[in-house]
């Protein structure tokens, strides 16, 4: 079963942390990334640099910023192959962002066609 993990940074990136702690967090990420079945997404840049596109009456409308509020914008994603939701929850809980003021959303992948 495939799950898409959406990572929301919340206050995790804006909270100042000493060098030591940052290194520990990177090391944790490295561990998480070794999880079998986990495929990380491309690293995403800041939502401030996002451009949102809509098409109305055939006309392309672009607006500056993400679709939702900057604070609520998605910050990263990954794909996880896991047996069930419990396994996905356990992995999500190991992602450092989840305990540093951000959150991980687990979405079951769906086949639409």
């Amino acid at each position, binding site marked *: 079963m495939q799950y898409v993990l959406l990572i929301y940074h919340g206050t995790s990136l804006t909270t100042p942390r000493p060098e030591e702690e940052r290194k520990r967090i990177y090391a944790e990420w490295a561990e998480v990334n070794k999880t079998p079945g986990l495929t990380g997404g491309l690293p995403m840049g800041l939502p401030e640099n996002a451009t949102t596109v809509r098409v109305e009456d055939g006309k392309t409308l672009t607006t500056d910023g993400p679709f939702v509020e900057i604070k609520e914008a998605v910050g990263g994603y990954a794909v996880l192959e896991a*047996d*069930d*939701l*419990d396994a996905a*929850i356990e992995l999500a809980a190991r992602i450092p962002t989840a305990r540093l003021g951000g959150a991980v959303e*687990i979405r*079951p992948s769906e086949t639409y066609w």
Partner: protein
Amino acid sequence: MVATLEQVFRDQWGRVLAALIGFLGDFDLAEEAAQEAFAIAAERWPQDGVPANPGAWLVATARNRAINRIRRDRTLAAKTRLLEVPQAAEDTMDATAFPDERLELIFTCCHPALATEAQVALTLRTLGGLTTGEIARAFLVPEPTMAQRLVRAKRKIKAARIPFRVPPEHLLPDRLDAVLAVVYLIFNQGYGGRGDLAAEALWLGRALAELLPDQPEVHGLLALMLLLDARRAARFRDGELVLLADQDHSLLDTAEIAQGREALDRALALRGRGPYVVQAAIASLHADQPRDWPQIAVLYGELSRLTGSPVVELNRAVAIAEAQGPQAGLEIVDRLSLQDYHYLHATRGELLRRLGRTQEAREAYRRALTLVHDPAERRLLQRRLAEHPPSR
């Protein structure tokens, strides 16, 4: 005969449905099949008699129905993805034993990925066998809302693949807490006057105690519910709420108290010291006459440490007031930050009244009145105000 049938249905629904979900892996399919089997039973059993093992009969019948349906659907839709349905299911069905998967079912229904209200509804529907209408009425929501809630929960279980299993050791404590919380929530919904839900919660509590005999908190919760339920008749007089201190002791259900204490003893023998066990111990002390207030206060202190809840501290204050006098209780109450909680002000009013500080007591009662919702509790506060007119 009809009563017996109903009893059998009542007892078997959860087990039969759990076994079917375990076998079919689909809530809706299992529910439809179970309903069909129960309908067939209602038709046949009055004439043919109740089979020796009604549960196994119902599971076997429901399974056959479901398998036939799956085959039919498969042929009709010519689905490419084959469902793995054991061909020999009909003949290998052991008529004497079928797996009891109610635990798997309740852990699935109370999975934290579902909203609490959905957990409650799903537990009552699947294990309790209540109809959607019955659940909707108990929780004062329109039936379509409740139906929608159930549909969404079942859909999520399937789409997100919430596992149908008893959680492994490292997840069990958290997940069990969630299950117990749901059962206690159902009980409290019934304790407010709707008796049938309290009975439902007791039934679930007994089933859990049977299924998880080594978990002290399970026995603790059962004990707590039994001991609280035992004072149902004493809690109301002519539709009016009666305070614990004023309850008529002769109205307590002594048989239920004995059962509650038995469950409490089991919990204590398992070295249970969790929040439900401690609450049950307090409820047990409340059933004694006269009450051992110092001991009750000690247990509230323990519960307060376990939960860190200011509401528990408030209860401790009441016990301290009984053991050491209203002034000692008031000192605890005045340290609590529960300004929006009507019981805080009602308790303050009560303690101030006993200290003869009538004006302040009236102010506290009035403050409580602005916060209270329950009509019976409102009337009680109004009575107190009327009994203590403002002094001149």
